[in-house]
């Protein structure tokens, strides 16, 4: 395995971590707001707040890891993506900032305020939509290169079917992952009413997720045939993803083993996400940039990997501690320890 492959593997794993953790968070914000709209806030809100309160800060960091590491390993990505994504990136940043800070304001500030919750809920759907556009752009066709100048073709992006299929997939995945997790969390808290509500969301959320992922495949075939054909080489990964989904849906439907069901949801997304990632290689941006394109700097690459390993050795025990105290501590989950 070359240092480039190792690097992109590490980064992709961070992005996968972000996909799961952030989806739970984004979806939870949406459900919290939706709960207030339909007058069932008292059912969902306590479960969501008990989970989110200790972990909200951790979420953002996965994303920061990804882009900091990406530029560290593949500096040329800054030249292409940095220039092209100025406006979409800024919009995503503004949304992320509003979301993160307003969560703290609402949660730790003295007064409850509907606007905070609204901002928190809405950004939960808009951020994944805007971040997912980066995947769309990476397929090529949306960036024009004129010598040193790089231009993002906004109109092409807006009228592309592929782009909207990806946005749809991102939003439905967020709602599905989140509800599957919150159903598990509610089940642990033995909160029957919250569980039932989340179970419904999970069952209904699964259907659009699968349909929109089919859309994505069809649209990818039209947009980037080369990549589409490479995904077929990894058909078994996408097959395993579908099987995991069916397993999870079955368990949730039968009201059994919500924990295992959530693990299956994580596997469903892991297979699909890594399948997509591997078939995307060696390109970071079709057709301009591959992982081998940047001037390789073995010393920096090795140092980054070393720091990654050392950092991971520090973080995993800390994360385990965090989870034992809040996620797997039944008394805390039930709200007896706050």
């Amino acid at each position, binding site marked *: 395995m070359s240092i480039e492959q190792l690097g992109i593997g590490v980064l992709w794993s961070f992005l996968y971590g972000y996909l799961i953790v952030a989806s739970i968070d984004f979806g939870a914000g949406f459900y919290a707001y939706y709960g207030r709209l339909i007058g069932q806030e008292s059912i969902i809100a306590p479960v969501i707040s008990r989970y989110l*309160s*200790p*972990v909200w*800060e*951790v979420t*953002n*960091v996965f994303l*920061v*890891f990804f*882009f*900091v*590491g990406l*530029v*560290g*390993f593949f*500096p*040329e990505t*800054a*030249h292409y*993506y*940095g*220039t092209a*994504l*100025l*406006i979409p*990136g800024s919009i995503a*940043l*503004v949304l*992320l*900032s509003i979301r*993160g*800070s307003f*969560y*703290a*304001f609402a949660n*730790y*500030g*003295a*007064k409850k305020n509907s606007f905070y919750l609204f901002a928190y809920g809405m950004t939960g759907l808009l951020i994944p939509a805007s971040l997912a556009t980066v995947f769309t752009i990476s397929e090529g066709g949306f960036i024009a290169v004129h010598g*040193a100048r*790089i231009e993002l073709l906004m109109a092409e992006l807006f009228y592309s079917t592929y782009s909207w299929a990806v946005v749809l997939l991102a939003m439905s995945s967020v709602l599905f992952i989140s509800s599957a997790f919150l159903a598990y969390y509610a089940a642990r808290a033995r909160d029957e009413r919250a569980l039932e509500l989340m179970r419904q969301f999970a069952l209904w959320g699964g259907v659009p997720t699968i349909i929109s992922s089919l859309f994505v495949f069809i649209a990818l075939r039209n947009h980037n045939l080369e990549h589409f054909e490479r995904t077929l080489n990894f058909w078994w990964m996408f097959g395993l993803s579908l099987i995991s989904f069916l397993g999870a849906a079955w368990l949730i439907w039968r009201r059994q083993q919500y924990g295992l069901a959530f693990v299956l949801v994580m596997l469903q997304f892991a297979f699909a996400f890594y399948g997509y990632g591997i078939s995307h290689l060696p390109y970071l941006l079709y057709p301009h940039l591959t992982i081998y394109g940047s*001037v390789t*700097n073995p*010393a*920096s*690459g090795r*140092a*980054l990997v070393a*720091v990654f390993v050392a*950092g991971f050795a*520090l*973080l995993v025990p*800390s*994360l385990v*501690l*965090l989870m034992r*105290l*809040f996620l797997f501590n039944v008394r805390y989950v039930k709200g007896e*320890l*706050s």
Partner: protein
Amino acid sequence: MSTVDWSRGLTEMTLAFHILFATIGVGVPVLISIAEWLGIYRKDPHYSLMARRWARGFVITVAVGVVTGTCIGLQLNLLWPEFMSLAGNVVGLPLFMETFAFFFEAIFLGIYLYTWNRFKNPFTHWLLTLPIVLGASASALFITTVNSFMNTPQGFTFENGSLVDVDPLAAMFNPAAPSKVAHVLSSAYLTSAFVLAMIAAFSMLKGRKDEYYRKSIRLNMTVGLVLAVLTILIGDMSAQFLAAHQPEKLAAAEWHFETGGRAPLIVGGVLDPDTQQVRGALELPWGLSLLATHNPDGVVIGLNDYPQEDWPPLYVHYLFDAMVTIGFYLLAVPVLFLLLLRSRREGAYNRWMLAAIVAGGPLSLFAIELGWFYAEVGRQPWILRGYMRVSEAATTNPHVGAAFWMFAALYALLGIVCLVVLARLFRNKPAELELEARRIIL
């Protein structure tokens, strides 16, 4: 305005906003840790309550610090893509480490905030402050090495317009790193002590009388005295570093044009840029030579040794002077307070003293801004000193102006809401009420 100007403007705005929260984020955990430890060690619930109340306000500033930190991290790539493609494989490492350090802090902060009553031994909860302090200070350390690298780049070979043969550790521990890191850390701790003292002094000025506020002021002023001395000593170290490794930056701050010994220190004044004459300044003979070399005959390199297109803007003189003046103010206040406290216990809390302490809060934050503006503007015209100019590093995307206004609106919103929330937090729940609720009556 050109794209470069907009990019500079947006970066300045983001940094200026972020640094306030980052400074508090680095410093306040130290004081929370001290207060909680005192509370347990002396069995004094006042200090325990202090730790709780500070932590509650702290988490709100952390939230704003986190999101604006994410902004500056990504903006580095969005606004300065050519710099990042040149130096990304060098600064990537410390940036990555900074993220790890912050992650570590965030995990333990999450645990800390929700486990006040979880452990039988109160020291267990106090122990959680250590990784928070460590993570916060380590992330300041790593990010400051990146800034140091931009000032005194080393640890690579420059070949065909790119950096090769990179030695990432040599790049991190460049000549600017020790003095800069030390200065950033000690000034962050100092500023946080003053901000916390400001809150207590303000409450006393408003007529609150509880011993809680006095203890808070005493603690923060004691810590503040030590840190003010330390910060000024480290500032002296920074001047020596500049004289040796980045003389044009010191010369610009001191309006020192001709290389030579026995150079005077110029405070204030007005410069005539054509004749290089300074009017109306306070001149301390030999001052600059002493500052830069600790020797009155020490030779200090002047700006005229550099081509004029490589000069930093000369207004940095005022930034530098104002920063140093505030630095001495922040030393004078705790000295005076502690002297008063020794001579007559009650007199130390008179209105003037309290007002001076309150003023120290915004002034110390202002000094942080001045210091960073001096650090950044003083490096101009370079983004990577000697290798890449700011104008070569900026994005070619023509829409930076739109992004600028978008972020301006964001920071205005965050700043106002954050202040309102913080004010409400402390006003609606004064310490007396909480003391009563917790049955702490002394």
